[in-house]
């Protein structure tokens, strides 16, 4: 029991304890990546060919022409904004009951599963697919786009609302329940104050997404600025298309800036 103390060895325990599993995962991932990158088909002469074509394409965007199609552009933007506002409002309104139902700490199991199913289905189909479906159902025009964006909003907003409710502080909720509050009062006094700021921020974020998607939805016949953009490309009026793209970028940036400001303010 005398002499220098014995050094005790220490190393951080590995993330995967089984060494065989650990090394086979590493090696497996390495081999797969090597093969995957090895099989990317790059046609170098085609790229060399494409560079000037790409340059010509970009060049044809300049200078952007805001004036010669100003009427159509204004109408398209107006329609897109209309589509964005209505679909965001309707989508969020519909997603509130779905979100409440899809929160595990609020709802009985049957309701929970049903609402999660609605969310999953709505999230499975991208806006374009929904728009194609609604165009088939109701014909060309912004109504189809409005429906597509509303339905997509339900999946997005319902899921995030449910998750935010599941993450709330249970003690605050318990305290309000202990006063003898009814379920609706409990919702307004304990749940709402906890989720509202984030949900306002996400509402603005969804507004932003819906505006961008309204351009995509328009390309498949859902009306709005997308339709105007498609027409411009079809007529090879790239300078007008450039103007439209610039306006979309401008509006998206404005919304983004506003939503950042509002989010800070509601916290």
């Amino acid at each position, binding site marked *: 029991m005398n002499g220098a103390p014995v050094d005790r060895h220490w190393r951080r325990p590995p993330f995967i304890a089984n060494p065989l599993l650990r090394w086979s995962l590493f090696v497996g991932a390495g081999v797969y990546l090597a093969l995957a990158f090895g099989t990317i088909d790059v046609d170098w002469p085609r790229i060399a060919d494409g560079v000037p074509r790409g340059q010509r394409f970009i060049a044809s965007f300049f200078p952007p022409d805001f004036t010669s199609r100003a009427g159509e552009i204004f109408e398209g933007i107006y329609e897109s904004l209309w589509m964005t506002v209505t679909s965001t409002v309707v989508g969020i309104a519909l997603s509130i009951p779905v979100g409440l139902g899809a929160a595990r700490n609020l709802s009985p199991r049957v309701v929970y599963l049903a609402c999660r199913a609605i969310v999953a289905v709505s999230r499975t189909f991208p806006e374009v697919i929904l728009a194609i479906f609604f165009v088939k159902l109701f014909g060309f025009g912004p109504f189809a786009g409005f429906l597509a964006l509303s339905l997509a909003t339900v999946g997005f907003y319902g899921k995030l609302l449910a998750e935010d409710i599941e993450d709330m502080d249970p003690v*605050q909720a318990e305290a309000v329940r202990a006063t*003898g509050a009814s379920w609706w009062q409990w919702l307004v006094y304990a749940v709402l104050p906890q989720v509202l700021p984030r949900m306002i921020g996400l509402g603005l974020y969804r507004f932003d997404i819906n505006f961008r998607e309204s351009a995509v939805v328009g390309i498949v016949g859902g009306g709005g600025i997308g339709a105007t953009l498609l027409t411009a490309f079809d007529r090879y009026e790239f300078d007008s298309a450039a103007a439209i793209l610039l306006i979309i970028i401008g509006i998206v940036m404005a919304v983004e800036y506003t939503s950042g400001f509002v989010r800070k303010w509601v916290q």
Partner: protein
Amino acid sequence: MLRLEKLVKRYRTGDLALTGIDLEVPGGQVMALIGPSGAGKSTLIRCVNRLVEPTSGRVFLGDTEITGLSKGQLRLARRRMGMIFQEYALVERLTVMENVLSGRLGYTGFWRSYFRKFPQRDINEAFRLLERVSLDHMADKRADELSGGQRQRVGIARALIQEPELLLVDEPTASLDPKTSRQIMRLICELCEERELAAIINIHDVLLAEMFAERIVGLQAGTIVYDGPPDRLGPDVLTTIYGEEDWTATIDKVDEDELTEEELRERERLMSRAS
């Protein structure tokens, strides 16, 4: 006033939190419930207002059998039991006033509460209570702007505006400094006396329990192992509740500067008993 009969709680995980508690708290009595973490103190008071559903056994508040009530009736019964929480449990993004008035939700219709149109009588009472806990100038501050002691005083006002017959108090001082802890405990006990309220106070600070409560119940692994006045709570009893430890140290922890006359006398009494 409050009577528990053979109260058992077994959690879904299989843990037996309460093993058949029989307990009676007469009107106006302030009772401290002490015991180690996990002894079932929180479970016990939550079984009283059924925030936790008891597995078996019965709870009576006056003549009402709480354990037999439907959801709607339970809501009405909960108004008669004010609850004060560890970590205050204020709704942080609501104002102090909204938090206090939330104690009236059980008496107010949905739309009135939604639009914050509480009866004038409730608003007067809320201001009176805030004044009583010296916070009336903070009415429109958001709850998360307050210090710990201030928050707990709002929590107390929220419980009292229910006009309860019983206070259920869960570790009211767990996140407060020693001085504020004493002030909060004193406030709770004074208010209980003023309003002739019965109270069950869960508290892990034995010394505070002895100072302020007229009766102490010791809980250990879901069973009552001590029930009596604070002055019979010697080191041997503390050992049955908490396990072997040098209990004189509990007493030395107190900072003398922060004690009032009364508390100093109390402390001398404890010291002489310990030695």
